[in-house]
């Protein structure tokens, strides 16, 4: 089995990786790069905990082989969080009881970040659609919806005030 050498960008930094073809991108991010914010739940595409952004689109980290990421631009939950403190989405999740154990949270934060960066004023239906592929076993989704709504409402406010 041949190993492959890759060059890709992760959270804005160029990285080189040497991978076995069967290694998933999520495993490479966690194991080799130490970016353990990306969680692995089911490892076959169902739960969404591993969701990352690849070339501008949300994608399942467990359903992409690392070798397929040659030349790609990857953004993980670490890449959408400030170096210290919480992002507005993370802050809202905390305020609105959008998490309990936190296992699904990285995936939720990533898809909400993607939604808000591509759609400045999403409706409730847009938010539901964005998180539809993410499983949460703890909060029952209402807290997550409330958090997302709060971020959207704050943005509307800011737009109005400026």
């Amino acid at each position, binding site marked *: *089995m041949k190993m492959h050498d890759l060059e890709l960008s992760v959270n804005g930094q160029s990285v080189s990786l040497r991978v076995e*073809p*069967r290694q998933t991108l999520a*495993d490479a991010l966690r194991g080799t790069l130490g970016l353990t914010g990306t969680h692995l739940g089911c*490892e*076959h595409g169902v739960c969404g905990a591993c969701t990352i952004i690849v070339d501008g*689109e949300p994608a399942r980290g*467990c359903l992409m*082989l690392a070798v397929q990421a040659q030349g790609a631009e990857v953004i993980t939950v670490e890449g959408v969080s400030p170096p210290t403190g919480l992002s507005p989405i993370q802050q809202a999740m905390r305020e609105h009881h959008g998490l309990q154990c936190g296992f699904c949270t990285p995936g939720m934060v990533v898809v909400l970040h993607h939604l808000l960066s591509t759609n400045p004023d999403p409706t409730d239906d847009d938010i539901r659609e964005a998180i539809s*592929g993410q499983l949460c076993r703890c909060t029952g989704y209402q807290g997550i919806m409330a958090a997302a709504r709060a971020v959207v409402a704050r943005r509307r406010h800011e737009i109005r005030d400026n």
Partner: protein
Amino acid sequence: MKPAPFDYHAPETIQGALELLDRHGSDARVIAGGQSLVPMLALRLARPEVLVDLNRIPELAGIRDCGGTIRIGAMTRQAHALASPLLRDRLPLLGYGLYNVGHPPTRARGTIGGSVSHADPAAETPAVMLAYDARMVLAGKSGTRTVDVADFMLGTFETCIEEGEILTEIVVDVPPAEGTAFVELSRRKGDFAMASAAARMRLNEDGACASARLVIGAVAPVPLRFDAVTDALTGQVVTEGLLREAVSLIDLERFEFDNPDISLAYRRHIGPVLARRALMQAFERAGERRS
């Protein structure tokens, strides 16, 4: 679980992919979006020795408007097809179906060609393609061949794609102005359908049904067409009552799937209900498109 080891190739041309498939024979498997294949690798339901990745072949992706027909490259992402104004305008049924395929992150990677090649009985795209009488273009070492969708789908996870061949594109004739609808029942949006119905309807000047098409999916190894139902509608003024009568002509004997989660009896109950709703919606949309 993790996939068993395999070698990986990412050719940049169709020719390159075909040569790799030819060289490795039954040891090789192509990977498109990976949204069905990678789970199968992880669960070790598939153990190819060589993976041939189609993602670096630009000529396989993209949607082309060829006047009377639209050609959809096999590697066109589901999300891209869903967002395409051309498809929304000319082949809206595809979008109605795709909206039910997985979720935004799976549609961003998953492809149209992968979805029909995977031939999951509960998948939406094969039912849509059957409703449109699409044609599948297959490339192999000795040239290309074009297969009608009805001959393409053979059974559960089974198509007529032969060893060494790949699906390169799907060709659909653009229909005249019509209404279409896709309705399914699943436990949660984005989950696989327990049963689904795809309908098309064209109206004549007096608003009567000029032609129609009905496909029911997820009830048998391949999606099923029910022409007796649509024959009964042709030439008639569509009403709720007429649709009720027409869907009673669905031959429920052709439904096969029976499992502890979704029984055959339940599928036979909801199949006609979904069919009626899809036909009604197609009729209403046909009216909007005419006026």
